[in-house]
């Protein structure tokens, strides 16, 4: 094994965006991107977690994976909500977290804001496009 390599990131805060476009369980992207989001909190980075297209189903309430025998990752959003709360409340940390659902994707699937396991901002596509254009790092799975 090679030696560990680390880059100096002290004091740098960037705008990270995580784009979730895929339905949960059919593929694993929903679960593994969540792990990436959680790690970024340790680096005190801005995080914009966006759900568009079938990604909106990732945070649908009532997921029950017993019969498919897969891991129900939707419970992890409780941790995301806590991280966001910490970021919002702690003035010493320069870290802004936003959780956004695209309105058009939500409506096309017959869903409403109270169908989700986490509080979200519902934003129409033209406004979301502007938010997206301001990001520095876009991670899509």
């Amino acid at each position, binding site marked *: *094994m*090679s030696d*560990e*390599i*680390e*880059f*100096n*990131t002290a004091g*740098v805060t*960037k705008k*990270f965006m995580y784009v979730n476009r895929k339905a949960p369980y059919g593929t*694993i*992207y929903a679960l*593994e991107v969540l*792990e*990436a989001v959680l*790690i*970024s909190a*340790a*680096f005190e*980075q801005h995080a914009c977690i966006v759900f568009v297209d079938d990604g909106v189903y990732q945070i649908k309430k009532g997921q029950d994976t017993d019969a498919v025998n897969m891991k129900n990752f939707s419970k992890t959003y409780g941790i995301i909500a806590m991280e966001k709360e910490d970021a919002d409340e702690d003035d010493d940390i320069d870290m802004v977290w936003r959780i956004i659902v695209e309105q058009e994707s939500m409506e096309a699937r017959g869903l409403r804001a109270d169908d989700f396991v986490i509080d979200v901002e519902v934003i129409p596509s033209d406004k979301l496009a502007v938010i997206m254009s301001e990001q520095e*790092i*876009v*991670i*899509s*799975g």
Partner: protein
Amino acid sequence: MKFGILVNEGPFTHQASDSAYHFVSAAIEKGHQVMRVFFYYDGVNNANKLSAPQADDRDLVKLWGKLATQHNVDLVVCIAAALRRGIVEENLADGFRISGLGQLTEVGIAADRLVVFGD
């Protein structure tokens, strides 16, 4: 300019790893620095040293390894994704190392650009 790369898919089934490899090669040729290639999701399968493509096909595992040696590119395999998929020190190809997901965030912060290749 400093680049970070994220590869989400394994070799063979999707073109993602091929595209990433060509992008990285072209960036180096143009004098840019590729600080790190991070392999996530099925991308960890790029580090399986037991992979043995047919003689008339490209061998991405070896190509990535060579790039790492010749141009000092840090090839990092996500440990959580790798454990699930059976990539461990025992079958890890030359030039790759296994580390935590924090190394993805880190290169995102340190590099000027992060480019994602996947399905």
